[in-house]
């Protein structure tokens, strides 16, 4: 048997699953004592280019409460053409098409290497492939320069869309305009007040989208939903028209008086976008891409008044219960997120402004629908432009790396139940035998809706061992979990990906060693961190820290405690929401970087090497490259920066210095090119103002309090009152000993 690290890596590679424990304690009591619950990080669309698409429907268990998919763990009676469900033990007849089944002629889903398998659901000839729908919701209250950059990005995006994709355009400022596309001559748009919310039905009537009732009795042809309408049209038909329309977009013409913010009807614009898709393409994959240049200042969903003298809420205001629009706005956006997610629609938010835009209130829109949240200073930055372009990245088959309107269903063995999920999903409220009564995250269900998925989207799933202590599981028993993800592929196909995985049970009293050995520290850290962040979102800050301290304290937790995911100090509410959003959807590797940034050192002493995230790593003759996921920072040590200023790199005899300078830049570029969203790129040096990003991350082993004790040549002191890891660990050790008593 391979070592656990190998086993974990292999599992992750094949199934996109990482469990906190890879051997499970066999009773509820023991599991509770383990502190870290049995939980998994699951990446439903883990890239598997090697996976052959299966062109038939999955075979389901016939028990109505089970409906598990036939998988390699099932026992098969080839002679009787029967299979036993490994979840409910129901014996099922194979369907007639499996008549030729035998030990040597097995369908793919029974082969062990296909523990993850993808079915392509065939549709009838009259059911055409679902088109992808992209609805742009564009703010026009911004500086001309920004608007121009945004317009260009949008025009560019049209060329990246497949020709059959449907696009729509909604612009907003003081009013909300829904543009009719493909008009000859006069361009038409429907205008709505920015202060009044409309239900989908009202909107449908007002946009004239009600189907004429006369066509009801005309048979199957009439029943077919329209594949486009005046507001959402295929790119191939209207790209010229839309390009012109975008080109003609003007800044919101309503005057803004001195000392006021422009009136921005973001809340209503999003509501109309949601409503438009709700009444035209329910249960079809669609993206609402919202481009926001500032906070909503009027109507439902407003987050700040239009008086410039009253600033947008800060954490301080929120703690003092002084953010008067927050609750109402959050409620508005939550309702929108609910409507969008129940129809399988994604809401993306691209917020580009120097000040906050209300991401805190709007976060649920992206978080609940699997949409992207991107935060930048301006639309005229490469951060936005590159990130936006990367949304349309395609895989080798030329399909977008995005999936729509997915549902994730979990089946478990009897001894284990699912408590909940944390990630960009909403509950579908599907009760079943495998649903635990104890909720963690979004619980009480075994099905979740994930409207938007990409290959890195990762959900944290928490389980509960329910087996009673006095009903031991036979030796060698295995607990199984099946993940069934149904989704709309970017090509329009409906696909079902099934991952079935199993772990051994072990009696904690006798086999504690093997359980401990199976612990996946990284996965556990992220799973606990997600839980902590989830709690931080829903509960008061310090309590979460205390809870975290009580639960488990390790290296990661030191950084997690200091990370923006839990600390709001120095971060605006929007930034916190943004960081947490990314943390909740990224896969394990990325999440690790977010918690504990990676630090590389470049020097003449040898090849680049990873160094400790510690102030002691900051040396004058080093260049440091720090990757915090959100930022890529290159820090030139004091000496290096002096050399650079002196211009040595220009001189032929110091070519090696030029190479040294170039090396981290090249590495940074590589990171910049692959990451989504594109990180902020910072090039700074010793004493530079931007160096604060680095200094705030490293372990403050030297501070102004103790710097002389450590000697002056080893690193840079950090001016902070935060405890260092050393102090933290000392304290922890003390605590661990005393608390054991």
């Amino acid at each position: 048997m391979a070592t656990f690290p190998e086993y974990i890596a292999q599992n992750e590679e094949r199934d996109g699953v990482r469990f906190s424990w890879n051997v499970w304690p066999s009773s509820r009591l023991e599991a509770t004592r383990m502190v870290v619950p049995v939980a998994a990080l699951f990446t439903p669309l883990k890239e598997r280019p090697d996976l052959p698409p299966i062109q038939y429907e999955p075979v389901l268990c016939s028990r109505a409460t089970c409906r598990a998919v036939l998988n390699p763990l099932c026992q098969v009676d080839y002679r009787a053409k029967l299979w036993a469900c490994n979840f409910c033990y129901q014996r099922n007849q194979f369907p007639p098409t499996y008549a030729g089944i035998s030990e040597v002629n097995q369908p793919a889903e029974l082969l062990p290497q296909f523990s993850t398998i993808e079915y392509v659901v065939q549709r009838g000839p009259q059911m055409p492939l679902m088109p992808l729908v992209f609805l742009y919701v564009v703010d026009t209250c911004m500086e001309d320069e920004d608007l121009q950059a945004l317009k260009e990005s949008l025009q560019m995006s049209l060329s990246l869309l497949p020709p059959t994709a449907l696009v729509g355009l909604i612009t907003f400022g003081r009013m909300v305009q829904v543009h009719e596309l493909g008009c000859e001559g006069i361009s038409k748009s429907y205008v709505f007040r920015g202060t009044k919310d409309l239900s989908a039905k009202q909107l449908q009537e007002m946009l004239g989208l009600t189907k004429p009732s006369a066509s009801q009795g005309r048979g199957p042809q009439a029943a077919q939903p329209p594949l486009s309408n005046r507001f959402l049209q295929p790119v191939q038909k209207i790209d010229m028209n839309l390009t012109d329309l975008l080109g003609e977009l003007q800044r919101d013409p309503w005057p803004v008086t001195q000392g006021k913010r422009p009136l921005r009807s973001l809340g209503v614009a999003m509501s109309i976008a949601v409503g438009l898709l709700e009444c035209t393409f329910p249960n079809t994959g669609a993206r609402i891409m919202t481009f926001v240049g500032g906070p909503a200042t009027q109507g439902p969903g407003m987050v700040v008044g239009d008086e410039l003298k009253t600033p947008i809420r800060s954490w301080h205001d929120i703690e003092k219960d002084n953010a008067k629009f927050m609750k109402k706005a959050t409620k508005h956006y939550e309702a929108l997120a609910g409507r969008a997610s129940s129809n399988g629609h994604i809401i993306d938010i691209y917020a580009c402004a120097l000040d906050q835009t209300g991401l805190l209130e709007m976060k649920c829109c992206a978080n609940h629908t699997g949409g992207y949240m991107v935060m930048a200073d301006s639309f005229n930055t490469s951060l936005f432009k590159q990130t936006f372009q990367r949304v349309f990245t395609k895989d080798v088959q030329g399909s977008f790396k995005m999936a729509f309107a997915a549902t994730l269903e979990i089946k478990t063995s009897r001894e284990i139940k699912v408590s909940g999920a944390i990630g960009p999903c909403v509950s579908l409220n599907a009760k079943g035998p495998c649903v635990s009564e104890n909720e963690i995250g979004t619980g009480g269900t075994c099905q979740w809706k994930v409207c938007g998925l990409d290959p890195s989207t990762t959900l944290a799933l928490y389980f509960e061992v329910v087996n009673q202590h006095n009903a031991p599981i036979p030796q060698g028993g295995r607990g199984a979990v099946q993940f069934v993800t149904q989704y709309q592929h970017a090509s329009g196909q409906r696909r079902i990906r099934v991952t079935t995985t199993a772990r051994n049970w072990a009696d904690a009293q006798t086999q504690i060693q093997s359980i401990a050995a199976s612990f996946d520290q990284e996965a556990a850290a992220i799973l606990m961190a997600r839980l902590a962040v989830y709690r931080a979102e829903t509960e008061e800050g310090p309590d979460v820290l205390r809870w975290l301290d009580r639960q488990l304290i390790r290296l990661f937790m030191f950084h997690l405690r200091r990370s923006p995911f839990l600390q709001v100090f120095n971060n605006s509410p929007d930034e916190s929401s943004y960081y947490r959003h990314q943390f909740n959807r990224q896969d394990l590797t990325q999440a690790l970087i977010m918690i504990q940034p990676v630090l590389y050192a470049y020097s003449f002493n040898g090849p680049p090497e990873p160094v400790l995230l510690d102030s002691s790593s900051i040396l004058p003759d080093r260049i440091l490259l720090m990757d915090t996921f959100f930022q890529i920072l290159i820090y030139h040590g004091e000496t290096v920066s002096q050399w650079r200023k002196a211009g040595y790199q220009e001189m032929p005899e110091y070519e090696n210095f030029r190479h040294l300078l170039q090396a981290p830049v090249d590495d940074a570029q590589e990171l910049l090119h692959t990451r989504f969203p594109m990180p902020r790129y910072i090039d700074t040096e010793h004493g530079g103002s931007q160096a604060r990003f680095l200094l705030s991350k490293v372990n403050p082993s030297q501070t102004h309090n103790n710097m002389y004790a450590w000697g002056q040549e080893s690193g840079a002191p950090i001016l902070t009152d935060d405890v260092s890891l050393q102090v933290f660990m000392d304290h922890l050790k003390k605590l661990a000993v005393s608390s054991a008593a």
Partner: protein
Amino acid sequence: KSDSPTLAEFSLLTVCTLFIFHSLYVFIFYLILFYFAHFAGQTLLNVKQASDLPAVQKSRHRIDPDAIPSPIQVIEDDKAKSTEPFTTGVRGQAPPLVTTNFQVKDQGNASPRFIRCTAYNMPCTSDMAKQSQVPLAAVIKPLATLPPDETPPYLVDHGEGGPIRCNRCKAYMCPYMQFIEGGRRFQCGFCSCVTEVPPHYFQHLDHTGKRVDCYDRPELSLGSYEFLATVDYCKNNKLPQPPAFIFLIDVSYNAVKSGMVSIVCQELKTLLDYLPRENPDVDSVVRVGFVTYNKVLHFYNVKSSLAQPQMLVVSDVSDMFVPLLDGFLVNVNESRMVIESLLDQIPEMFADTRETETVFGPVIQAGLEALKAADCAGKLFIFHTSLPIAEAPGKLKNREDKKLIGTDKEKSLFQPQVGFYGSLAKECVAQGCCVDLFLFPNQYVDVATLGVVPVSTGGSIYKYTYFQAQTDRERFLNDLRRNVQKKVGFDAVMRVRTSTGIRATDFFGSFYMSNTTDVELAGLDCDKTITVEFRHDDKLSEETGALMQCAVLYTSCSGQRRLRIHNMAVNCCSQLADLYRNCETDTIINFFSKYAFRSVLTSPTKTVRDSLVNQCAQILACYRKNCASPSSAGQLILPECMKLLPVYLNCVLKSDVLLPGADVSLDDRAYLRQLISCMDVTESHVFFYPRLLPLMKLEGDALPVAVRDSEERLSKGGVYLLETGLHLFLWVGANAQQELLINVFGTPSFSQIDPNMTSLPVLDNPFSQRLREIIDSFRAQRSRYMKLMVVKQEDKAELIFRHFLVEDKSASGGASYVDFLCHMHKEIRQLLS
């Protein structure tokens, strides 16, 4: 001799005869003949034997129509009398009749073109006024257009301090202000308060006590003039923006199908060059905007920088707003290309529309909001076709119910069915948003309700029932052209001040009043008339007479804030005879009709008719009792100035509003009712007593003498032109001479005349030419274009024509002139006995 015939007896009577001596009328019943004259205070009495008049006796049961007062005779007499220009300097002098052409010289009182009074000698006391029952009213047309040979009111600028006014009653400087103390102060003619003359306005007095500069200053020597208003007279103390015109076009199925949409769009392309302006050499500063609608509204961005207009659809009609600011109201010259492109495209865009439902309330709201957003006053031109049944504020239901006619509930049909438009009108007035409504209905549209806003904002309603592009195009386009081009003021407030003793108590017309004195008009054009009724609140003196000053503060079409002042002084009398000698029947009828047409909102029409008859009977009875010499009760004696009162009153009583025929729709009645409310005397005269011209001989420049509106007057062999101000008929007798037919129609055969023609063929003969000239001149005189209808004798259409022969019995049961006169006489006798 026996008197007091009862009504029952009346029809059995053999009416003997009736004598006329110049101006005096005596009816004699029961074979007893009197001859009675009353002229210039002199009374003559002659008695003749019945046997002297055998010819008349033969026509049993009839009074000879020639023997009763003839409107034509009165009109012709007045024309013959008025050869000199009418000078307004003499107080208490009644001007010539409205049917007479005359020139006016302003010598200190307003021209009768601006103000006409019912009485130019007011009774000194309220008791006298009550006794006589003669209404004391002035019909004021503040922005009336003057003929080219009369000077329009001068514009006076009193500088930064604004117009000089009396300190107490705030009357404006006028010829009635008496300068005292060497010109340092002036005493107000209205309230007698003494006010200091500001230094910059000081001038010495001459030996008669007049200012030396009296004749250099219009406000000291003329009856009508204008002041330039200062910023104090402006809304929010801010000089006004130039006004805007917004065209709101119904593009529902009916509107498109009838051709209205394409006609409007086509016409606007040229019409926009003729927006009102003060100086014909400069471009108009009026900005324009465009909206189309069915059950949603489409606004258009026609900003000059755009290559193509943009359409912005607002479908949330429940809470109307303007979706754009920049580019909605534009200067015509700057945005000409975009506007033309838009007007070309509108008919195409909606050519295939299937939408039949419309909204109306939100349409007005849209225009109002646009003006609010642009912070200016202006006018909405709404082209509308149908009852607004789409779900929106101001939604209406069909409530036309002919069963209610004649019942106590009839009045509800004239009242708006929802209160929404009333409050909307109030908002419009506050913004200076005048609404003109062009209706193209194919069925009931509830004019009574749709008209609320136009009527309250000084707007006009035009109605083209069963509009067809072919036949109604000319009429509609002429109305539209005139309406767009005519002189108009915005955001106006009118105040009538009077000298002590009388007070303006009641107002009639298209306006809104939020208090009891200020008449607020969102728009005021040159055709709109406001009628003001006065009542005594004290004694008047014969020396000073009664003064009134009508001041209208308005924004001109160039955006200038101005005050137009009309002054009027009338005499006061302590003798009733003086009152009756200086009355104007046409003006009294104008007042009565407005009064009655407003009363139908609150009282059953029968009550309204009865009270009108009763008031007239009282007027005449009072005259008979107090001014005429004693004579037999069987005599009907009418004052010279009021001898047409019965015939005209009968016309009012028979009008479609008060006594509708079976074919008159509720909409027509509401439309007429609202139309009359702002008519001037000239128009109301011809409306109630149409002009009927015989066309057998057309010689020279003079018009042929009109004949009375009775079938008896029509000759089978003739052709007649009848004009009401709204309708124009050419009646062709069945035996009309061939030559005449050839001259007019180009065909000798009566049967070949096409009754559907709306204009006469252009024929190269003097007769045809002259006839067409006459028709054109008639049309030019009226504020609305009259469509020509050719009526052939004994054709079906003759029924409509006969309706206008007002001296005859009407199909709806209205009395003939003779019958009504007898009825009137009976009423008077009852009052006297």
